[in-house]
């Protein structure tokens, strides 16, 4: 899942970034509204964690532009303003969820996952295909009841393929969904991650390679 964190408090945004990456999400962190809009113009994010009181471009304006762009990115507003009216205003702008500061990190993660599932079409909390079961919130992957020991990137790639339910996913798309902006676009990281993932998934093979296209989860 690709997440953009927009928060002007340095320590807070860095901690959120670290925590979310450990949860297997591909996270970009920016400190102001201007940079947020720049990133949103280039990358399609599943969830945007947006502080409301941002310098340069206010969080409300960023939220309005995300909704207007029709990109389908879900917006979680994060703010110190905690009166009911302010929460209602935030949701009225088109935010999908609202979390007042200070918050529990576990709740933030759970809410981001819930928003990620709402990407059209809605996804179930656990992804299944044949004997393969993936539970993103508990970070558990099972094959035939056997637990698989996957790295965060391998997990993210498998999650992305399962969420596409048999549709072909290009290497570029995988790179965008499972890696953050630090990834080199000409890297062979996707190829090698898929290779390792296949080895861990074992027989019979689950991931098909589509020539000139990318990868997909095969029929069960």
């Amino acid at each position: 899942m690709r997440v953009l964190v927009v928060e002007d408090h340095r320590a807070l945004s860095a901690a959120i970034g670290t925590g979310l990456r450990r949860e297997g999400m591909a996270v970009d962190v920016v400190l102001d509204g201007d940079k947020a809009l720049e990133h949103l113009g280039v990358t399609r994010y599943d969830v945007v964690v947006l502080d409301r009181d941002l310098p340069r471009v206010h969080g409300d304006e960023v939220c309005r532009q995300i909704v207007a762009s029709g990109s389908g990115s879900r917006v979680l507003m994060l703010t110190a303003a905690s009166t009911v009216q302010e929460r209602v205003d935030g949701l009225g702008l088109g935010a999908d969820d609202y979390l007042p500061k200070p918050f529990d990190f576990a709740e933030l993660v759970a809410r981001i996952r819930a928003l990620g599932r709402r990407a059209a079409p809605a996804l179930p909390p656990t992804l299944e295909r044949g004997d393969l079961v993936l539970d993103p919130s508990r970070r558990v992957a099972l094959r035939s009841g056997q637990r698989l020991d996957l790295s965060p990137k391998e997990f993210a790639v498998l999650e992305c393929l399962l969420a596409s339910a048999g549709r072909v996913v290009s290497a570029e798309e995988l790179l965008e969904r499972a890696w953050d902006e630090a990834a080199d676009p000409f890297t062979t990281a996707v190829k090698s991650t898929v290779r390792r993932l296949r080895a861990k998934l074992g027989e019979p093979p689950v991931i098909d390679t589509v020539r000139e296209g990318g990868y997909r989860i095969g029929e069960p």
Partner: protein
Amino acid sequence: MTRPESRPRLRARLALLYASLFLCSGIAVLVLADLPLVSFSSAARATGDGPKNGAGGHSLSTTNLPEVLLYSGIALAVLAVLSVAAGWLVADRATRPLRVITAAARAISASNLDERLSLGDSYEEFRELGDTLDDLFARLEAAFDSQRHFVANASHELRSPLAAQRTVIQVALADPAASADSLRSACNQLLEIGEEQERLIDALLTLAVSQRGLRKREPVDLAGVAGRIMQSRSTAAADRGVRVDASLAPAITAGDANLVDCLVTNLVDNAIRHNLSGGRVQVATGAAAGVACLSISNTGPVVPPGDVDRLFQPFQQLDDERTSHDAGHGLGLAIAASIAIAHGAAIAAQARPEGGLDVTVRFRLADPGSVSPEP
């Protein structure tokens, strides 16, 4: 709320006044109307006295006077009742706008300061009173609004570091591969965030103290204060590659030494912080024409002239500086302004066209008779 009952009430007073006025004019009219009647009957007695019998004329005069008096008495009684009633009614009408104002003013509290008396078509005097009170409510509302705004801003500024603290702790604790190093770095981060909160709370307290006004006035030499603070900030300035120049001439004012210290500290820190590498800060003090003057100029990013006044408001910063690492909370100039106001000093800032700010504070020069040298 209890009201002392012994005080005379305006309505009763007015009613009494009107009633007695009505009554007096009533009596005057009665007497004027009766006089010819009474004099007529005595004239009849006098004319009948001479040629005919004196007894008939005498009996005529004695039967007329009591009747006149009786009817006059009845008329007077009716008049008295009518006067009191009319007086009461008129007094009631005259004081009605006052009661409206009282009731409305009583109903207005901190939670509904936006309500107004709006005595539209009333007498000029009452309308003036109503408008004056409405103006007062408007000023109170503005003051309450700015207070609420300030509290909201302060709580917002306090919540962000709190949220950061909690997140840093929870992320560090949730790390399955946590090592001594990663936990140590989390602790260091927590310390930094804690220091940030301390600075904010200190700044808020200073602001509150300066807004309370001065408790004491003692002679303070601006040159001494500025010299000391520049010395203590020399390392910080050097770290940022900022050169600090001074031209300090004695400038003695009367004020709270701690607050003056705080004012100069905030201005100097501001000038160093919002500067460029290789930039300059110039601090000057001096006395002239009854004014003890402190001026601090710094190079730095260009400040749009329209934004200068905004910088004196609490929690206001230029957008470009909000995300820089140690930008502060936007309280420095607000604190300086508040301390200046408490001292009756004039503070003014001007954006330099090439970037940076010129800030000048003009204190009153201390009365030479009352000045004793600073210890």
